[in-house]
Protein backbone atom coordinates (compact mmCIF):
# COMPACT_ATOMS: atom_id res chain seq x y z
CA UNK A 1 0.00 0.00 0.00
CA UNK A 2 1.40 3.35 -1.03
CA UNK A 3 0.07 6.65 0.26
CA UNK A 4 0.61 9.44 -2.15
CA UNK A 5 0.41 13.16 -1.40
CA UNK A 6 0.76 15.67 -4.21
CA UNK A 7 2.94 18.63 -3.23
CA UNK A 8 2.14 21.79 -5.11
CA UNK A 9 2.39 24.44 -2.44
CA UNK A 10 3.87 24.79 0.98
CA UNK A 11 0.51 24.05 2.61
CA UNK A 12 0.53 20.52 1.14
CA UNK A 13 3.34 19.64 3.54
CA UNK A 14 0.69 19.44 6.23
CA UNK A 15 -1.17 16.58 4.54
CA UNK A 16 2.06 14.62 3.95
CA UNK A 17 3.02 15.07 7.58
CA UNK A 18 -0.39 13.81 8.73
CA UNK A 19 -0.03 10.67 6.62
CA UNK A 20 3.55 10.15 7.78
CA UNK A 21 2.78 10.52 11.47
CA UNK A 22 -0.25 8.24 11.24
CA UNK A 23 1.75 5.52 9.48
CA UNK A 24 4.75 5.81 11.80
CA UNK A 25 2.67 5.59 14.94
CA UNK A 26 0.61 2.74 13.48
CA UNK A 27 3.90 0.84 13.00
CA UNK A 28 4.74 1.46 16.64
CA UNK A 29 7.50 4.05 16.16
CA UNK A 30 8.49 5.94 19.32
CA UNK A 31 7.29 9.51 19.50
CA UNK A 32 10.85 10.76 18.85
CA UNK A 33 11.11 8.62 15.72
CA UNK A 34 7.67 9.83 14.61
CA UNK A 35 8.99 13.38 14.94
CA UNK A 36 12.08 12.50 12.89
CA UNK A 37 9.93 10.89 10.19
CA UNK A 38 7.70 13.94 9.80
CA UNK A 39 10.75 16.20 9.92
CA UNK A 40 12.28 14.28 7.01
CA UNK A 41 8.97 14.54 5.14
CA UNK A 42 8.89 18.28 5.77
CA UNK A 43 12.44 18.86 4.57
CA UNK A 44 11.89 16.79 1.43
CA UNK A 45 8.53 18.41 0.65
CA UNK A 46 10.04 21.81 1.25
CA UNK A 47 12.75 21.03 -1.32
CA UNK A 48 10.08 20.04 -3.85
CA UNK A 49 8.23 23.33 -3.41
CA UNK A 50 11.46 25.32 -3.41
CA UNK A 51 13.32 23.78 -6.34
CA UNK A 52 10.83 21.87 -8.48
CA UNK A 53 7.57 23.71 -7.90
CA UNK A 54 5.60 20.49 -7.66
CA UNK A 55 5.95 16.80 -7.07
CA UNK A 56 4.76 14.19 -4.64
CA UNK A 57 5.56 12.44 -1.39
CA UNK A 58 4.91 8.69 -1.32
CA UNK A 59 4.84 6.69 1.87
CA UNK A 60 4.90 2.94 2.24
CA UNK A 61 5.54 0.39 4.92
CA UNK A 62 8.50 -1.92 4.75
CA UNK A 63 9.17 -5.31 6.24
CA UNK A 64 12.59 -6.87 6.32
CA UNK A 65 13.59 -9.83 8.47
CA UNK A 66 10.73 -9.23 10.82
CA UNK A 67 11.46 -5.54 11.29
CA UNK A 68 9.02 -2.78 10.45
CA UNK A 69 10.04 0.30 8.59
CA UNK A 70 8.75 3.19 6.62
CA UNK A 71 9.84 4.37 3.19
CA UNK A 72 9.46 7.98 2.15
CA UNK A 73 9.87 8.78 -1.51
CA UNK A 74 10.01 12.39 -2.64
CA UNK A 75 9.64 12.63 -6.38
CA UNK A 76 9.54 15.58 -8.74
CA UNK A 77 10.00 16.34 -12.43
CA UNK A 78 11.80 19.60 -11.81
CA UNK A 79 15.15 20.80 -13.12
CA UNK A 80 17.08 18.08 -11.27
CA UNK A 81 20.28 18.54 -9.33
CA UNK A 82 23.31 19.27 -11.47
CA UNK A 83 25.91 18.62 -8.79
CA UNK A 84 24.68 15.85 -6.51
CA UNK A 85 27.89 15.60 -4.54
CA UNK A 86 27.74 19.30 -3.73
CA UNK A 87 24.06 19.07 -2.82
CA UNK A 88 24.86 16.41 -0.24
CA UNK A 89 27.76 18.28 1.29
CA UNK A 90 27.75 20.72 4.16
CA UNK A 91 28.57 24.34 3.71
CA UNK A 92 27.37 24.69 0.12
CA UNK A 93 24.69 26.99 1.44
CA UNK A 94 23.95 28.53 4.79
CA UNK A 95 21.14 26.09 5.45
CA UNK A 96 23.26 23.09 4.65
CA UNK A 97 25.99 24.56 6.84
CA UNK A 98 23.51 24.04 9.66
CA UNK A 99 22.97 20.46 8.59
CA UNK A 100 19.45 20.99 7.25
CA UNK A 101 18.10 19.97 3.85
CA UNK A 102 19.25 16.75 2.17
CA UNK A 103 22.31 16.08 4.38
CA UNK A 104 20.11 16.60 7.43
CA UNK A 105 17.52 14.13 6.14
CA UNK A 106 20.29 11.59 5.49
CA UNK A 107 21.37 11.88 9.12
CA UNK A 108 18.00 11.40 10.76
CA UNK A 109 17.01 8.45 8.55
CA UNK A 110 18.56 4.97 8.39
CA UNK A 111 18.84 4.66 4.62
CA UNK A 112 19.15 7.29 1.96
CA UNK A 113 19.15 7.18 -1.83
CA UNK A 114 18.95 9.93 -4.41
CA UNK A 115 18.50 9.78 -8.16
CA UNK A 116 18.58 12.95 -10.16
CA UNK A 117 19.02 13.89 -13.79
CA UNK A 118 19.25 17.45 -15.07
CA UNK A 119 15.91 18.53 -16.61
CA UNK A 120 14.33 15.19 -15.71
CA UNK A 121 13.75 15.58 -12.00
CA UNK A 122 14.79 14.16 -8.68
CA UNK A 123 13.74 11.17 -6.60
CA UNK A 124 14.88 10.88 -3.00
CA UNK A 125 14.12 7.62 -1.19
CA UNK A 126 14.71 7.31 2.53
CA UNK A 127 13.88 4.60 5.04
CA UNK A 128 13.53 4.50 8.75
CA UNK A 129 13.34 1.25 10.71
CA UNK A 130 11.50 0.84 13.93
CA UNK A 131 13.95 0.70 16.82
CA UNK A 132 13.95 -2.72 18.43
Amino acid at each position, binding site marked *: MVLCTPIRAYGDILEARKQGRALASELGFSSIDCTLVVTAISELARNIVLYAGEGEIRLSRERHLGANGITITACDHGPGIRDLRNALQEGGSTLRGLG*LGLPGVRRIMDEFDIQSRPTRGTTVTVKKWKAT
Partner: protein
Amino acid sequence: MEGDVATFETGILADEFGREYAGALERYLAAGGEAPLLAAYELGRQGLTGGGGVLQIVGLHHLALARLFATGEEEPQSAARAISRAGEFCAESMSTFEMTLRAIGETNIALRKLNDTLEEEVQRIALALHDDAGQLMVAVHLALDDAVRGLPADVQGRICGVKALLGLVEERIRDLSHELRPAMLDHLGLVPAVEFLAANVGQRAGLNITVTSTLKDMLPPKFALSLYRIIQEALANVRRHAHASRVQIQLGKRGTLMRCVISDDGIGFDPVVTAKTARPGLGLVGIRERLNTLGGKLRIQSGKGRGTKLEITAPFVQVKHADSNPPRRRPSRSA
Protein backbone atom coordinates in the same frame (compact mmCIF):
# COMPACT_ATOMS: atom_id res chain seq x y z
CA MET B 1 13.96 39.11 41.15
CA GLU B 2 10.29 38.80 40.30
CA GLY B 3 10.51 41.97 38.31
CA ASP B 4 13.40 40.55 36.27
CA VAL B 5 11.49 37.41 35.45
CA ALA B 6 8.43 39.41 34.43
CA THR B 7 10.49 41.67 32.16
CA PHE B 8 12.18 38.69 30.55
CA GLU B 9 8.83 37.01 30.06
CA THR B 10 7.11 39.98 28.48
CA GLY B 11 10.20 40.55 26.34
CA ILE B 12 10.43 37.05 24.96
CA LEU B 13 6.70 36.51 24.54
CA ALA B 14 6.02 39.96 23.18
CA ASP B 15 7.91 39.66 19.91
CA GLU B 16 6.29 38.07 16.91
CA PHE B 17 8.22 34.84 17.21
CA GLY B 18 7.22 34.38 20.83
CA ARG B 19 3.58 35.18 20.12
CA GLU B 20 3.44 32.70 17.25
CA TYR B 21 5.04 30.00 19.34
CA ALA B 22 2.71 30.55 22.28
CA GLY B 23 -0.30 30.68 19.95
CA ALA B 24 0.58 27.42 18.20
CA LEU B 25 1.23 25.69 21.51
CA GLU B 26 -2.13 26.84 22.81
CA ARG B 27 -3.89 25.55 19.68
CA TYR B 28 -2.13 22.20 20.02
CA LEU B 29 -3.12 21.78 23.66
CA ALA B 30 -6.68 22.80 22.90
CA ALA B 31 -7.34 20.70 19.82
CA GLY B 32 -4.23 18.72 18.86
CA GLY B 33 -3.71 18.05 15.18
CA GLU B 34 -0.85 18.31 12.73
CA ALA B 35 -1.14 22.02 11.86
CA PRO B 36 0.25 23.35 15.16
CA LEU B 37 3.04 20.74 15.03
CA LEU B 38 3.97 21.95 11.55
CA ALA B 39 4.07 25.45 13.02
CA ALA B 40 6.38 24.19 15.80
CA TYR B 41 8.73 22.64 13.23
CA GLU B 42 8.68 25.85 11.18
CA LEU B 43 9.36 28.05 14.20
CA GLY B 44 12.22 25.83 15.33
CA ARG B 45 13.65 25.97 11.84
CA GLN B 46 13.30 29.74 11.75
CA GLY B 47 14.92 29.98 15.15
CA LEU B 48 17.85 27.88 13.98
CA THR B 49 18.41 29.62 10.64
CA GLY B 50 17.89 33.00 12.24
CA GLY B 51 20.76 32.25 14.61
CA GLY B 52 18.54 31.63 17.61
CA GLY B 53 19.57 29.18 20.27
CA VAL B 54 18.14 26.04 21.78
CA LEU B 55 18.02 27.71 25.18
CA GLN B 56 16.00 30.57 23.77
CA ILE B 57 13.34 28.26 22.38
CA VAL B 58 13.22 26.00 25.41
CA GLY B 59 12.95 29.09 27.61
CA LEU B 60 10.20 30.42 25.41
CA HIS B 61 8.41 27.08 25.55
CA HIS B 62 8.37 27.00 29.32
CA LEU B 63 7.24 30.58 29.66
CA ALA B 64 4.44 30.02 27.18
CA LEU B 65 3.39 26.87 28.99
CA ALA B 66 3.53 28.55 32.40
CA ARG B 67 1.39 31.38 31.10
CA LEU B 68 -1.24 28.95 29.80
CA PHE B 69 -1.38 27.28 33.19
CA ALA B 70 -1.56 30.53 35.06
CA THR B 71 -4.78 31.44 33.28
CA GLY B 72 -6.43 28.02 33.17
CA GLU B 73 -7.91 26.08 36.04
CA GLU B 74 -6.52 22.68 35.25
CA GLU B 75 -7.25 19.52 37.16
CA PRO B 76 -3.98 17.74 38.07
CA GLN B 77 -4.77 14.91 35.65
CA SER B 78 -5.49 17.09 32.69
CA ALA B 79 -2.49 19.22 33.62
CA ALA B 80 -0.26 16.16 33.39
CA ARG B 81 -1.75 15.34 30.01
CA ALA B 82 -1.23 18.90 28.82
CA ILE B 83 2.41 18.90 29.92
CA SER B 84 3.07 15.66 28.10
CA ARG B 85 1.43 17.00 24.93
CA ALA B 86 3.41 20.19 25.28
CA GLY B 87 6.49 17.96 25.28
CA GLU B 88 5.49 16.59 21.87
CA PHE B 89 5.13 20.12 20.61
CA CYS B 90 8.54 21.10 22.01
CA ALA B 91 10.21 18.05 20.45
CA GLU B 92 8.78 19.11 17.10
CA SER B 93 10.36 22.55 17.42
CA MET B 94 13.71 20.94 18.30
CA SER B 95 13.82 18.51 15.37
CA THR B 96 15.89 20.78 13.12
CA PHE B 97 18.38 21.34 15.95
CA GLU B 98 18.71 17.56 16.13
CA MET B 99 19.85 17.57 12.50
CA THR B 100 22.43 20.26 13.24
CA LEU B 101 23.69 18.40 16.28
CA ARG B 102 24.18 15.24 14.26
CA ALA B 103 26.01 17.22 11.59
CA ILE B 104 28.42 18.58 14.20
CA GLY B 105 29.00 15.09 15.57
CA GLU B 106 29.86 13.82 12.09
CA THR B 107 32.17 16.76 11.46
CA ASN B 108 34.04 16.07 14.68
CA ILE B 109 34.56 12.46 13.75
CA ALA B 110 35.77 13.49 10.31
CA LEU B 111 38.21 15.95 11.87
CA ARG B 112 39.58 13.30 14.16
CA LYS B 113 40.02 10.88 11.28
CA LEU B 114 41.73 13.58 9.26
CA ASN B 115 44.04 14.18 12.17
CA ASP B 116 44.95 10.49 12.30
CA THR B 117 45.59 10.50 8.56
CA LEU B 118 47.84 13.54 8.89
CA GLU B 119 49.71 11.88 11.72
CA GLU B 120 50.32 8.80 9.57
CA GLU B 121 51.47 11.00 6.71
CA VAL B 122 53.91 12.85 8.96
CA GLN B 123 55.36 9.56 10.14
CA ARG B 124 55.73 8.38 6.56
CA ILE B 125 57.60 11.56 5.61
CA ALA B 126 59.78 11.34 8.71
CA LEU B 127 60.70 7.78 7.89
CA ALA B 128 61.41 8.60 4.25
CA LEU B 129 63.64 11.49 5.31
CA HIS B 130 65.49 9.39 7.81
CA ASP B 131 65.94 6.18 5.85
CA ASP B 132 65.82 7.05 2.15
CA ALA B 133 67.52 10.43 2.25
CA GLY B 134 69.96 9.16 4.86
CA GLN B 135 71.03 6.24 2.69
CA LEU B 136 71.45 8.46 -0.36
CA MET B 137 73.68 10.70 1.68
CA VAL B 138 75.88 7.79 2.63
CA ALA B 139 76.10 6.86 -1.05
CA VAL B 140 77.13 10.43 -1.94
CA HIS B 141 79.87 10.35 0.68
CA LEU B 142 81.21 7.06 -0.68
CA ALA B 143 81.05 8.31 -4.27
CA LEU B 144 82.97 11.44 -3.32
CA ASP B 145 85.64 9.40 -1.50
CA ASP B 146 85.97 7.31 -4.60
CA ALA B 147 86.15 10.31 -6.93
CA VAL B 148 88.89 12.19 -5.09
CA ARG B 149 91.25 9.25 -4.94
CA GLY B 150 94.39 10.14 -6.91
CA LEU B 151 93.39 13.79 -7.39
CA PRO B 152 95.77 16.63 -6.43
CA ALA B 153 95.79 17.65 -2.77
CA ASP B 154 94.13 21.06 -3.31
CA VAL B 155 91.14 19.43 -5.09
CA GLN B 156 90.91 16.87 -2.27
CA GLY B 157 90.84 19.75 0.21
CA ARG B 158 87.96 21.44 -1.62
CA ILE B 159 85.98 18.21 -1.83
CA CYS B 160 86.58 17.78 1.89
CA GLY B 161 84.86 21.13 2.39
CA VAL B 162 81.92 19.87 0.32
CA LYS B 163 81.78 16.74 2.45
CA ALA B 164 81.64 18.85 5.59
CA LEU B 165 78.68 20.77 4.15
CA LEU B 166 77.01 17.50 3.20
CA GLY B 167 77.49 16.41 6.77
CA LEU B 168 75.56 19.46 7.94
CA VAL B 169 72.75 18.74 5.47
CA GLU B 170 72.63 15.17 6.75
CA GLU B 171 72.42 16.34 10.33
CA ARG B 172 69.66 18.82 9.49
CA ILE B 173 67.63 16.15 7.72
CA ARG B 174 68.05 13.76 10.63
CA ASP B 175 66.99 16.40 13.14
CA LEU B 176 63.97 17.30 11.06
CA SER B 177 63.00 13.66 10.83
CA HIS B 178 63.31 13.21 14.58
CA GLU B 179 61.32 16.35 15.16
CA LEU B 180 58.54 15.15 12.89
CA ARG B 181 58.34 11.73 14.46
CA PRO B 182 60.37 11.75 17.61
CA ALA B 183 61.41 8.17 18.33
CA MET B 184 62.72 9.43 21.63
CA LEU B 185 59.14 10.16 22.62
CA ASP B 186 58.61 6.41 22.83
CA HIS B 187 61.98 5.58 24.33
CA LEU B 188 62.81 8.48 26.61
CA GLY B 189 59.48 10.21 27.11
CA LEU B 190 58.00 13.64 26.56
CA VAL B 191 60.57 15.85 28.31
CA PRO B 192 63.70 14.83 26.34
CA ALA B 193 61.65 14.97 23.13
CA VAL B 194 60.47 18.50 23.92
CA GLU B 195 64.04 19.53 24.84
CA PHE B 196 65.24 18.21 21.50
CA LEU B 197 62.45 20.06 19.70
CA ALA B 198 63.19 23.26 21.60
CA ALA B 199 66.91 23.08 20.78
CA ASN B 200 66.21 22.57 17.08
CA VAL B 201 63.49 25.17 16.72
CA GLY B 202 65.55 27.58 18.82
CA GLN B 203 68.53 27.18 16.56
CA ARG B 204 66.52 27.55 13.37
CA ALA B 205 64.49 30.53 14.49
CA GLY B 206 67.07 32.31 16.62
CA LEU B 207 64.97 31.87 19.75
CA ASN B 208 66.18 31.22 23.25
CA ILE B 209 63.88 28.39 24.37
CA THR B 210 64.16 26.92 27.84
CA VAL B 211 62.40 23.80 29.02
CA THR B 212 61.77 23.11 32.69
CA SER B 213 59.95 20.10 33.99
CA THR B 214 58.82 18.53 37.21
CA LEU B 215 57.32 15.53 35.42
CA LYS B 216 58.53 12.19 36.62
CA ASP B 217 56.15 9.64 35.17
CA MET B 218 56.19 8.28 31.67
CA LEU B 219 53.01 9.36 29.90
CA PRO B 220 50.83 7.06 27.80
CA PRO B 221 52.25 7.18 24.22
CA LYS B 222 49.20 8.72 22.52
CA PHE B 223 48.85 11.31 25.26
CA ALA B 224 52.54 12.21 25.01
CA LEU B 225 52.36 12.47 21.23
CA SER B 226 49.34 14.81 21.42
CA LEU B 227 51.14 17.05 23.91
CA TYR B 228 54.25 17.01 21.74
CA ARG B 229 52.19 18.11 18.72
CA ILE B 230 50.52 20.83 20.76
CA ILE B 231 53.90 22.21 21.88
CA GLN B 232 55.18 21.94 18.32
CA GLU B 233 52.17 23.93 17.09
CA ALA B 234 52.59 26.51 19.84
CA LEU B 235 56.26 27.00 18.96
CA ALA B 236 55.35 27.34 15.29
CA ASN B 237 52.89 30.08 16.29
CA VAL B 238 55.57 31.89 18.27
CA ARG B 239 57.89 31.70 15.29
CA ARG B 240 55.30 32.93 12.84
CA HIS B 241 53.61 35.68 14.79
CA ALA B 242 55.21 36.62 18.08
CA HIS B 243 58.51 38.33 17.16
CA ALA B 244 59.79 36.96 20.44
CA SER B 245 63.36 36.37 21.60
CA ARG B 246 62.70 34.12 24.58
CA VAL B 247 60.29 31.25 25.12
CA GLN B 248 59.73 29.27 28.29
CA ILE B 249 58.15 25.85 28.33
CA GLN B 250 57.14 24.50 31.73
CA LEU B 251 55.88 20.98 32.13
CA GLY B 252 54.42 19.71 35.34
CA LYS B 253 51.66 17.99 37.17
CA ARG B 254 48.91 19.55 39.20
CA GLY B 255 46.83 16.98 40.99
CA THR B 256 45.42 14.71 38.33
CA LEU B 257 46.12 17.26 35.62
CA MET B 258 49.05 17.53 33.31
CA ARG B 259 49.98 21.19 33.03
CA CYS B 260 52.04 22.81 30.31
CA VAL B 261 52.74 26.53 30.10
CA ILE B 262 54.34 28.09 27.06
CA SER B 263 55.15 31.77 27.43
CA ASP B 264 57.00 34.16 25.15
CA ASP B 265 58.19 37.76 25.36
CA GLY B 266 56.84 38.69 21.92
CA ILE B 267 54.43 41.37 20.70
CA GLY B 268 51.33 39.57 22.01
CA PHE B 269 47.83 40.14 20.71
CA ASP B 270 44.45 41.23 21.96
CA PRO B 271 42.57 37.95 22.44
CA VAL B 272 39.16 39.65 22.32
CA VAL B 273 39.82 41.55 19.11
CA THR B 274 41.46 38.55 17.49
CA ALA B 275 38.53 36.32 18.38
CA LYS B 276 36.06 38.80 16.87
CA THR B 277 37.77 40.10 13.79
CA ALA B 278 40.55 37.87 12.61
CA ARG B 279 40.23 34.52 10.98
CA PRO B 280 40.84 32.25 13.92
CA GLY B 281 44.49 31.23 13.78
CA LEU B 282 44.69 27.72 12.46
CA GLY B 283 47.33 27.01 15.06
CA LEU B 284 45.01 27.66 17.96
CA VAL B 285 42.19 25.73 16.31
CA GLY B 286 44.53 22.77 15.93
CA ILE B 287 45.62 23.01 19.55
CA ARG B 288 42.02 23.19 20.74
CA GLU B 289 41.00 20.21 18.62
CA ARG B 290 43.84 18.11 19.98
CA LEU B 291 42.98 19.16 23.51
CA ASN B 292 39.34 18.25 22.96
CA THR B 293 40.31 14.70 22.22
CA LEU B 294 42.30 14.66 25.49
CA GLY B 295 39.50 16.31 27.46
CA GLY B 296 41.87 19.19 28.14
CA LYS B 297 41.65 22.97 28.28
CA LEU B 298 43.52 25.89 26.79
CA ARG B 299 43.86 29.27 28.49
CA ILE B 300 45.40 32.18 26.65
CA GLN B 301 46.77 35.25 28.35
CA SER B 302 48.02 37.97 26.07
CA GLY B 303 47.81 41.64 25.30
CA LYS B 304 49.43 44.03 22.86
CA GLY B 305 53.12 44.25 23.78
CA ARG B 306 52.77 41.88 26.72
CA GLY B 307 53.87 38.58 25.24
CA THR B 308 51.67 35.50 25.13
CA LYS B 309 51.13 32.75 27.63
CA LEU B 310 49.36 29.52 26.76
CA GLU B 311 48.32 27.36 29.64
CA ILE B 312 47.36 23.84 28.72
CA THR B 313 45.83 21.40 31.15
CA ALA B 314 44.68 17.88 30.46
CA PRO B 315 43.70 15.00 32.73
CA PHE B 316 46.19 12.15 32.90
CA VAL B 317 43.37 9.68 32.77
CA GLN B 318 42.17 10.05 29.26
CA VAL B 319 38.56 10.75 28.52
CA LYS B 320 37.24 8.05 26.25
CA HIS B 321 35.52 9.58 23.27
CA ALA B 322 32.31 7.98 22.24
CA ASP B 323 33.00 8.02 18.55
CA SER B 324 29.43 8.35 17.43
CA ASN B 325 26.05 6.86 17.61
CA PRO B 326 26.25 4.93 14.41
CA PRO B 327 22.98 5.33 12.56
CA ARG B 328 20.77 2.28 12.59
CA ARG B 329 20.91 0.47 9.32
CA ARG B 330 18.83 -2.21 7.74
CA PRO B 331 18.42 -4.88 10.38
CA SER B 332 20.85 -7.71 9.76
CA ARG B 333 20.26 -11.40 10.11
CA SER B 334 22.52 -11.72 13.08
CA ALA B 335 20.58 -9.07 14.99
